[in-house]
């Protein structure tokens, strides 16, 4: 296969998922400029390894490369952020393994109703530790299945589910805190 054919085929497989690539990089790196650099780097790496691509959909394959590129980049530039522990006990209310904090809100929709500030969701999600943030982003923003997420993150499906469960609980707690004016630190 000539370079031009390879290039064209690669573009057909990978470019339709450019938005997905940028979205993931932006959520992981939390910066527009860094996300742009990461995505460019990821596409180069993807092209270099394209000969080994077998498969129907380019999205999980490409996003796995984007994710790895993000982590490499973060390790080089912002290693501190990869290891911040999350303090569950900020308001003295521990999140049990069981579920969401019990009912101050008889109506769970109320906490999210009106979404008077949609930015709250972006802020809260950005605060999650990276392994939980990526699970929630891939599932609830990017709409990937557990199986696809498992292949992007290279973890078993059971781990996808538990990270997602925990990530959502953290998010719920953070949103509650923000709405009540008590901002949780990280």
């Amino acid at each position, binding site marked *: 296969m000539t370079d*031009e054919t390879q290039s064209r085929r690669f573009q057909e497989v990978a470019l339709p998922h450019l938005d997905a690539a*940028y979205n993931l990089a932006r959520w992981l790196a939390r910066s527009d400029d860094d996300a742009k650099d990461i995505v460019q780097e990821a596409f180069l790496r993807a092209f270099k390894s394209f000969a080994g691509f077998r498969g129907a959909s380019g999205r999980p394959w490409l996003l796995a490369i984007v994710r790895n590129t993000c982590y490499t980049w973060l390790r080089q530039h912002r290693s501190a952020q990869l290891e911040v522990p999350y303090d569950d006990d900020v308001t003295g209310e521990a999140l049990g393994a069981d*579920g969401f904090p019990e009912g101050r809100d008889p109506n*769970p929709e109320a906490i999210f109703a009106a979404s008077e500030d949609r930015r709250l969701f972006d802020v809260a999600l950005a605060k999650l530790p990276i392994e939980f943030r990526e699970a929630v982003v891939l599932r609830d*923003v990017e709409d990937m299945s557990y199986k696809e997420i498992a292949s992007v993150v290279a973890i078993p499906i059971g781990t996808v589910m538990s990270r997602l469960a925990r990530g959502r609980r953290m998010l719920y707690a953070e949103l509650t805190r923000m709405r009540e004016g008590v901002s949780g630190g990280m």
Partner: protein
Amino acid sequence: MECSAVRKLLTAAVDAELELRESAEVGCHLEGCADCRAQFERERALRSAVRSNATYFRAPAGLEERIRAALPSAPAARVAAVPGRKLWQWPQWPIAVGALAGLFAVASTIGLYTTLPGVDERIGDEIVSSHVRSLLADHAVDIVSSDQHTVKPWFSGKLDFSPPVRDFASEGFPLVGGRLDYVDHRTVAALVYRRAKHTINVFALPAPGRASDAAPRAGSTHGFHTVRWTRDGMTFWAVSDVAAEDLMRLVALLRAA
């Protein structure tokens, strides 16, 4: 099933990722257990709120062109490049004469790309709504025919642009027919294809201004796969709940036609 076992499966239940048997058992438990049901509802409300409110960051303008520019393309560019260097080494790639002309052409068309990301979101929503409506009303087509020589002229009497029409039955995407629809404040063409039991709508609308050709971009709106591209002054959107790979296959057939 005990509450403790159900709690472990709640997230998967909210995401409809349980096997049939587990799903039935959890469903059964939820019917009779208010506590677990409350948990389920909380997580479901959160998931739905995140999907509606969290930002989906789309690639900024120019990123696609920069990525393309870094890939090997026409032989002319290669001939002018510094020998011994790989063309796609970024950012040290020497700007070859042919590539420079290419970049200039790209830069001058960026200004003409008048569709902003926000507009695309709205059009995408309208497209998906039209798609769903066509399924619900059992009114997917006004002209029932798989023959392009019947469907294409049918449109030409009703639209001021002429969408390409092709049947791909031999590739597994039979053309069911066509209809008129209304998207982005104007009348557009909708071609209906079938893939196994799924319906695929392909909308054709005139592209804004002097928009240049745009490669396919995949997206997902309200659970439906969408692919959009622009060619020869027309923007196309393909929508379906069919598997993403199948939709891309139809898109490839349409673009090759």
